[in-house]
């Protein structure tokens, strides 16, 4: 009986004791990529080729441990791994970076808006005091539409001292626009990558669930009860360890159905929502047909 082991360093034909009878060495990765052709030739010569057992493989792997092979091992594996890393960039990676960028932009926007408020209040504290809406405040400062009241506590700043304040406002607006564009982009990629999850959970929550599980596959394989609690792990562990109150929902709490519902209904809605997200993820992962709208409608009819 003969056995064939296809290895990066060569195609090895051996007997049942793992003793090599014939070796077709690979002198480069290109040789290895041609292994199907070589295999055909080998099968022509050796008609009875079998899959090697673990014992036989071990024997062959032992013979390959040789100083002369070290260089090839490093080179070939490095090249294969480079190629694999390149091919590993899926939509999931784009989605995760995008949602993280959106969160970063939000944080920066908030931080800079606080700074702008303090700075601008030196010039016109009355307006800063009454304007609660950040977006409006930024926009009006940027477009110089802030009237100063008579008897204002604000300093009479020279134009050249006002300019940097206005510039900061303009920068914050830009950040907000970038964020909005990236949110649209996120919806687009989410719709292309997991349309069912996106229809049920929404692009942002869907993306956050993916950040958490790091892959659609994992989200799809997870029981719905776990999906329900994604993002509430710390509370869950506390519950398991100390018997504290068990959490009822994690990331999905931000879903419009839950936001608008009375507290008493939260548990029930969270369970139903997680159920549907879980179904949606399975359909998306196995590339089934689109039923996201129907899933979402069923939820909305039941709970709103």
């Amino acid at each position: 009986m003969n056995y064939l082991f296809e290895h990066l360093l060569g195609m090895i034909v051996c007997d049942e004791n793992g003793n090599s009878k014939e070796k077709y060495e690979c002198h480069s990765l290109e040789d290895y990529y041609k292994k199907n052709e070589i295999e055909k030739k080998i099968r022509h010569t050796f008609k009875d080729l079998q899959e090697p057992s673990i014992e036989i493989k071990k024997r062959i792997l032992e013979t390959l441990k040789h100083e002369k092979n070290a260089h090839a091992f490093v080179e070939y594996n490095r090249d294969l791994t480079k190629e694999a890393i390149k091919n590993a960039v899926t939509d999931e990676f784009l989605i995760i970076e995008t949602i993280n960028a959106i969160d970063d932009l939000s944080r920066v926007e908030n931080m800079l808006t606080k700074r702008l408020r303090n700075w601008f209040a030196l010039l016109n504290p009355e307006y800063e005091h009454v304007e609660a809406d950040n977006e409006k405040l930024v926009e009006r400062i940027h477009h110089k539409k802030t009237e100063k009241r008579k008897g204002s506590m604000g300093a009479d700043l020279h134009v050249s001292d006002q300019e940097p304040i206005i510039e900061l406002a303009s920068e914050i607006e830009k950040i907000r626009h970038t964020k909005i564009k990236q949110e649209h982009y996120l919806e687009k990629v989410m719709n292309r990558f997991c349309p069912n999850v996106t229809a049920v959970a929404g692009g942002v929550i869907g993306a956050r669930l993916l950040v958490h599980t790091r892959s659609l596959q994992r989200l799809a394989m997870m029981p719905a009860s776990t999906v329900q609690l994604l993002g509430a792990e710390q509370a869950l562990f506390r519950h398991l360890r100390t018997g504290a109150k068990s959490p009822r929902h994690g990331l999905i709490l931000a879903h419009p159905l839950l936001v608008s519902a009375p507290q008493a209904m939260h548990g029930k809605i969270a369970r139903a929502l997680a159920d549907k997200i879980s179904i949606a993820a399975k359909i998306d992962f196995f590339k089934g047909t689109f039923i996201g709208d129907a899933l979402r409608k069923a939820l909305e009819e039941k709970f709103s």
Partner: protein
Amino acid sequence: MKAAPIFEVYEQQKGKRRYLYTKSIAPGYDVYGEKVFKEGSEEYREWDPSKSKLCAAILAGAANVFIRKNDWVLYLGSSTGTTVSHVSDMVGKKGLIFAVDSAPIVTRELVFLSEQRNNIAPILADAHHPESYEHRISQVDVLYQDVSQKDQVDIFLKNIQLFLKKGGYAILAVKARSIDVVKNPKEIYKKVYEQIEQQGLKIVDKRQLEPWQKDHLILFCKY
């Protein structure tokens, strides 16, 4: 600088603290922000026990880590290569490390590391499935595993069976939290010992990694 009782590891006592080092095979570079310095014609890299469990195990009293110059090592869970880089120093230019990790982003760093150090063969693969990389490696003298997986002991045993030479050593970093978040680590460790010994491996040393790493254990086994 003097040689530590452990092969290929160096040490220095500064006050009450003991510092470990490896002799760099890639002078002029640091890998993860560690201190690097020259003494005579040699360059040494400080080994940080809070970033490397193997280092913590030595400081916790391990008298031997069974990694020798010129060894071939299968390293499962190489991540960005913090510990791998020190093992790379230990086995030296004639040694070899097959460094396996399943996450593409961290493995990118490992590829860069392998370009600096010619004894590292980076492999993007899932250690659950040794058959997916059996055609890319050879038998090894030492197997080191640090993957945070629930079934880490199964992974360990499967890989030992296929790749470790008889009489070779296998080192396992056990993270109790990965196996079970609620159970007492002691109970978890007991189960791990049983499972390993059932497979005919002999546990020759075990080290708890406190205070450097919480609820972690390193096991040294002979095959």
